[in-house]
């Protein structure tokens, strides 16, 4: 085992860690004034880490005697995570500039960087220990980020709620890990897979159930979703966008890795859990969103709903299914970040942030461009062709049908019709209600990002379908 080769494979993590520590020192001595500098450097560092993925980090194989996996799957997920983290940093100054007294502090981008390191460890875990430490690194940063607005009681509540329930979920996950370790004698995914292939014991089965419950909590899949609406509503909007994008990708990728690499031979056992969580999430996400008046809560239910659809792909348990999940996640991340960027533009003439659905009314007349972008994100989330959200849903349903899960695909399809109702309600409010507010003009960078995301989900995005499909398939095949 060559140490230099190992360290070459974790180059993105090294870049991020070194940058986070150095920037922390800059922040400690520079104070409040260096916030802008730290934010800009953090975004470039995330880009640098993304470029480092071109090296051995994407094809190196196993590092640190199997603890860490550097393959195409990990690299693909890390691209999404780093991208979403960068957007979360870019979104922040504008938002915090308008809150009453809660300034953006240089710790914000640093915590996002640390969270990105944790997410990276989760997606390239080859061992339950790596997975758990990565998860804790990511979650601990997330708890702090959720309550970053200290003067806002809702933000504090969100952080505390997330912390307590997250600790419970970690406990459940650890209990599962200890059972699996006890009955298989190893925490390495490869050895665990052998133990599962060797025959079923109740201990391994219980471990599997607990581990999947922990993962479902991190994913916010029903029945472990109850924290999502409160946390998403209370957390600062850029942080919510980060939770709904980067964290979803890392939790989902972690789930896929555990399911396929560690528990692949127990497909029949975990498939039942995944199918239940998937159906319940799709239905509850769609029904729960109907009564919501707060746009952030609505998007929280939408994220639960979308997790359900990605789980349909995982339930297939094939390379095609995993590739469909990655494809779905890519499009979902773009749609979600776009929607949250639009939510960030919702502020009245005094610059106060608005979050109610009613404040969107008549947006088509006051800000036609913004309304068009939001309408496209909503149509795309509802899965209406020719927008890209349709292709994503098609891919997961196709994978499920190929794997013989026809009833699941039918239920998912039916529930997506219910889901379409509340997405379309947003469009109706924007286009057919009388204008209520005139929004203050927005930031140019954010406008550009919205336009870019809207172009991606528009039929223009079809040009990207072929390369994206090929890339997700390569990534998925590296697991099987």
């Amino acid at each position, binding site marked *: 085992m060559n140490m230099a080769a190992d360290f070459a494979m974790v180059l993105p993590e090294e870049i991020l860690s070194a940058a986070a520590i150095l920037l922390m020192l800059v922040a400690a001595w520079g104070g409040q004034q260096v916030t802008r500098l730290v934010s800009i450097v953090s975004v470039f560092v995330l880009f640098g880490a993304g470029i480092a993925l071109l090296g051995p980090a994407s094809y190196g194989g196993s590092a640190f005697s199997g603890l860490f996996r550097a393959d195409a799957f990990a690299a693909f997920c890390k691209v999404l995570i780093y991208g979403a983290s960068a957007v979360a940093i870019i979104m922040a100054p504008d938002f915090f500039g308008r809150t009453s007294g809660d300034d953006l502090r240089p710790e914000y981008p*640093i*915590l996002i960087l640390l969270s990105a390191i*944790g997410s990276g460890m989760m997606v390239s875990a080859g061992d339950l220990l790596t997975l758990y*430490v990565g998860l804790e690194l990511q979650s*601990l940063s997330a708890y702090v980020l959720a309550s970053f607005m200290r003067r806002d009681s809702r933000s504090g509540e969100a952080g505390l709620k997330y912390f307590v329930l997250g600790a419970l979920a970690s406990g459940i996950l650890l209990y599962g890990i200890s059972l699996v370790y006890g009955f298989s004698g190893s925490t390495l995914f490869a050895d665990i897979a052998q133990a599962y292939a060797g025959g079923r*014991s109740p201990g391994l089965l*219980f471990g599997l159930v607990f581990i999947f419950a922990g993962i479902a909590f991190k994913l916010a899949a029903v029945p472990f979703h109850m924290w999502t609406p409160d946390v998403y509503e209370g957390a600062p909007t850029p942080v919510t966008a980060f939770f709904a994008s980067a964290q979803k990708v890392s939790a989902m990728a972690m789930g896929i890795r555990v399911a396929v690499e560690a528990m692949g031979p127990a497909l029949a056992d975990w498939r039942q859990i995944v199918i239940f969580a998937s159906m319940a999430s799709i239905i509850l996400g769609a029904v729960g969103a109907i009564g919501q008046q707060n746009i952030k809560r609505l998007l929280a239910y939408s994220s639960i709903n979308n997790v359900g659809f990605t789980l349909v792909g995982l339930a297939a348990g094939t390379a095609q299914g995993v590739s469909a999940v990655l494809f779905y996640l890519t499009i979902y991340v773009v749609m979600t970040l776009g929607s949250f960027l639009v939510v960030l533009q919702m502020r009245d003439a005094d610059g106060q942030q608005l979050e109610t659905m009613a404040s969107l009314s008549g947006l088509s007349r006051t800000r036609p461009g913004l309304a068009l972008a939001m309408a496209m994100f909503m149509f795309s989330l509802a899965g209406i062709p020719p927008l890209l959200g349709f292709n994503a849903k098609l891919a997961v349903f196709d994978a499920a049908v190929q794997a013989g899960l026809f009833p699941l695909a039918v239920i998912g399809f039916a529930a997506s019709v219910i889901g379409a109702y509340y997405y379309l309600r947003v469009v109706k409010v924007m286009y057919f209600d009388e204008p209520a507010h005139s929004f203050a003009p927005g930031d140019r960078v954010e406008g550009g990002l919205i336009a870019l995301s809207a172009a991606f989900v528009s039929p223009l995005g079809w040009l990207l379908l072929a390369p994206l499909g090929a890339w997700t398939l390569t990534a998925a095949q590296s697991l099987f």
Partner: protein
Amino acid sequence: MIQAIAFYLFAAVVVISAALTISSRNPVHSVMWLILAFFNGAGLMVLVGAEFIAMLLVIVYVGAVAVLFLFVVMMLDIEVAEVRAGVARYFGFGLLIAAALFAEIVFYAYGAVGTGSLQLAQRVAPINNAVPNINAIGQLLYTRYIFIFEAAGLVLLVAMIGAIVLTHRERGGTRYQNISRQNARRPEDATRNTQPTVGQGVQL
């Protein structure tokens, strides 16, 4: 034989003190029972040959965590009666969950041991008795698990940053002690020697 007696002694005290931790009326007593539970847990660890973990349990949990608990409990003004009311309200539900968990444990222990898929005397991951615990842990921690060890360091860094971000705020108008200024101050800067004549007093 003596091992079995020691095991049942420690185990019984752990269970009893854990029950008393959650049922005693005074929170300070609860913490004390918790400390007793930790000590007996350490005894169990010694019995299975994990002396390092036993020491950690005493030093870290009893020495630091439990004492911290004690501080917090003494500083907080907990209304025991209010907490009791909550317990009474959720007693049925809690009992239901406890019963479900207990049934699961019994079912699973029966399934595992009864069907012979679990041999209690046999370890899946055998340990090398020739190497002391602390050597074995150190060797693994700094070679094979170095990556996770470093990542755990980052987790602690996040905890530190988080604590400062969430609680530290600049207070205006606070006077800080400036030690170098205090040390640099000489008697002649602060005192004056005068020789007042009788009946005149001192002009300040």
